[in-house]
């Protein structure tokens, strides 16, 4: 699968970056391609590229707050979860999405 995602948490200090790392490592170990943008107190980092969004099979939004720029994902399959879901069980989430999408 090709995945793009956003991570964002309440204070934008810690959970955001842990969630991102968990998603990246899980996706890569399962053989998927992934890009994750973080929206934290230090601003947006690793902003998603339009091409990556265009080619993505799914958008994973791991956030405890409202994220910015969701209009970029118009027409895309979007999965929204709180950060603790990807922190606790990133592979489980990705496998379930893959199953649901039949990919």
């Amino acid at each position: 699968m090709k995945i793009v995602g956003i991570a964002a948490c309440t204070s934008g200090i810690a959970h955001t970056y842990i969630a991102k790392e968990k998603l990246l490592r899980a996706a890569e170990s399962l053989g998927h391609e992934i890009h994750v943008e973080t929206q934290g107190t230090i601003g947006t980092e690793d902003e998603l590229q339009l091409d990556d969004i265009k080619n993505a099979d799914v958008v994973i939004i791991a956030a405890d707050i409202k994220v910015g720029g969701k209009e970029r994902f118009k027409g895309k399959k979007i999965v929204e979860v709180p950060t603790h879901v990807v922190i606790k069980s990133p592979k489980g989430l990705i496998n379930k999405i893959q199953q649901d999408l039949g990919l």
Partner: protein
Amino acid sequence: MKVIDAIDERTIDLSMDVKNKKEAIVQLAGRLKEANYIDDVDSFVEDIYKREELGITGIGNYIAIPHGMSDSVKQVGIAIGKTNNEVEWETIDGNGVKLIFLFAVSNDHEYAKNHMKLLAEIATKLGNDNIVNRLLETKDVMELKEIFSA
């Protein structure tokens, strides 16, 4: 600046003798005070608990990441504590906590942005299970620094 620059030996205690979460947070806050990162333990701890109310900070695998955005923070930093016994904490996997990363962050986000980035990098490393497992095993400050700088 590198992650290792944000890790201050004065704010690390890898053998904490504490009975509960509150004691652990207060002791680590005390270290931040002594090392001049915060100017008041009580108000800092109060702000830590305000954040605790918004969502759990036990991220599983015996790790907790309490963090306070607080006016009492003079310098962005982190205190690291390892407890001799598992401490009860609200966690996503139902286990207790043995390793605590207490982030001290200013309310002014533009302030010390470089240091904020280092904290983000430290958090990133806590998303890596291999690193976490090594951190859980070490009892040595130098080794802990090495793990973070690898």
